[in-house]
């Protein structure tokens, strides 16, 4: 579980993203350089409108890059995207669960697999495992409107995992949940991450959440976003709720708080 920077899951090299508009262009990311080690859990914090979502969208290939490169396990995103292998490389979870309301829980999880045209048996077995993993048994036939916010978000994570991606991107995945559910979902996510051995990059606004979950917290500056702080979180794993009350945890939280205000 210790990050090995020798073989990074994600490398950003001089990455810039601009939006061209009728009234001039807006530079959102400016010459960003960092890498994320394989199997590490990294959180990204920064001011609103700073460009965090933009970065995630660039990594998942939804928007073009103006300059620089994004490299996933050694291969540039653009190349991967064309090779159609892409969908096994990056899974994305948005702020809202983003489920298709006309699909049942089961069908929502199987969506990426159907798109990838896997065999029905293969799909069934994978989805079955994921339902189990995320503790969604008994709700397979429920439609999204019948699910609570926490369950819907769990389905969204299951859907992203269905692709079995090397890199999991999460954009404020728990923002819609209340405080208690949020804590629970965080623990859940950590458990899955430990079991599945994925690389995770997650955007959040909650400092304690970031500290509790990650191996490393990145702090973005205001727009154009640059790396302001790169804080390793050397708390022992596996972690449980008590770690929140340890002096180390409190100190890390305080440091991030200071950096942000």
């Amino acid at each position, binding site marked *: 579980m210790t990050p090995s920077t020798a073989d990074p899951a994600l490398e950003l090299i001089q990455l810039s993203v601009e939006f061209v508009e009728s009234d001039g262009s807006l530079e959102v990311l400016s010459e960003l350089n960092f890498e994320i080690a394989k199997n590490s859990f990294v959180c990204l914090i920064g001011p609103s409108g700073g460009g965090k979502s933009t970065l995630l969208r660039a990594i998942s290939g939804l928007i073009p890059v103006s300059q620089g490169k994004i490299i996933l396990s050694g291969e540039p995103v653009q190349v991967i995207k064309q090779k159609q292998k892409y969908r096994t490389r990056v899974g*994305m979870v*948005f702020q809202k669960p*983003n489920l298709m309301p006309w699909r049942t829980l089961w069908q929502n999880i199987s969506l990426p697999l159907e798109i990838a045209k896997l065999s029905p048996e293969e799909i069934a077995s994978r989805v079955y495992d994921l339902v189990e993993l995320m503790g969604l048994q*008994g709700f397979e036939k429920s439609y999204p*409107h019948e*699910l*609570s916010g926490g369950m819907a978000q769990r389905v969204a994570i299951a859907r992203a995992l269905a692709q079995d991606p090397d890199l999991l991107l999460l954009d404020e995945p728990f923002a819609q949940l209340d405080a208690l559910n949020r804590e629970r979902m965080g623990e859940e996510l950590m458990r899955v991450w430990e079991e599945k051995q994925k690389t995770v990059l997650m955007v959040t606004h909650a400092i304690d959440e970031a500290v509790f979950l990650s191996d490393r917290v990145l702090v973005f500056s205001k727009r154009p976003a640059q790396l302001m702080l790169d804080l390793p979180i050397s708390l022992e794993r596996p972690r449980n709720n008590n770690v929140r009350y340890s002096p180390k945890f409190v100190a890390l939280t305080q440091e991030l708080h200071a950096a942000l205000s």
Partner: protein
Amino acid sequence: MTEPLKNEHAQRLSPRISPLLRILYPLGSVILLLALWQVLYSLLKLPAFILPSPKMVWDKFLLILLNGTWWHHLSWTLLEILLGLLIGGLAATLIGYGLSKLSFLERLMAPFLVGSSSLPMVAVAPLLIIWFGAGLGSKVLICSLTVFFPVLVNVLVGLRNTPQELHELMRSLNASPWQKLTMLELPAALPVLLGGLRVGTTLSVIGAIVGELVSSDRGLGFLINVGRGQYDTALVFVAVLSLILMASLLYYVVLLLERRALVWQTWRKDHL
């Protein structure tokens, strides 16, 4: 791990209506209407060819029901309507999808869509009959046209309102255009599309009747013409009531289809 269902609240708070009441209410309405009609008849003392009594209309209905006339005409009108719905609905869906992909064309067409929805079929039906003959074809054409525009507008609105985030999701999953169509766009547009079809059904009935009134030798519109020509107002009433009933039934059939197809929507039960 089991959390409460999200809209447990909402469901409990929505007004419940027992199945008995659901039948009793429309029944009540009909009885009310009949009573009102009878009172009006007895009070106004108009000649029967101006306002027949409910009894006269009922007798006339039984008569033409038993000798097959009723079904002969009703089935013809129904055929026109269903063909019109099928052709108009299908054409609107296909063309709507095409237009939605070519926003340039859509803008070009927008004024026609507004204009044509206000085009009174009764004014152009004669032109259509001159151009396309007086047979089944021109009636189906009129029906198709009346159905076409509301469905087209709804297809456009439905496709346009597909959540942007779901489009992003599909893109992030590298979905092919065909997969986007079948897995996202069609299901997303379905509720609005069916809504358009529902409105279209009502309009289609009107279209068929208008076509028949202008020229025909079969159908409920023809029956209205005959009744009026022979001062058989009871027959006119039977025909008008039949077509209202038919329109309402068709409306509820589409509504039912809608509910079945859209179980995934929190269905608004109080939807008219």
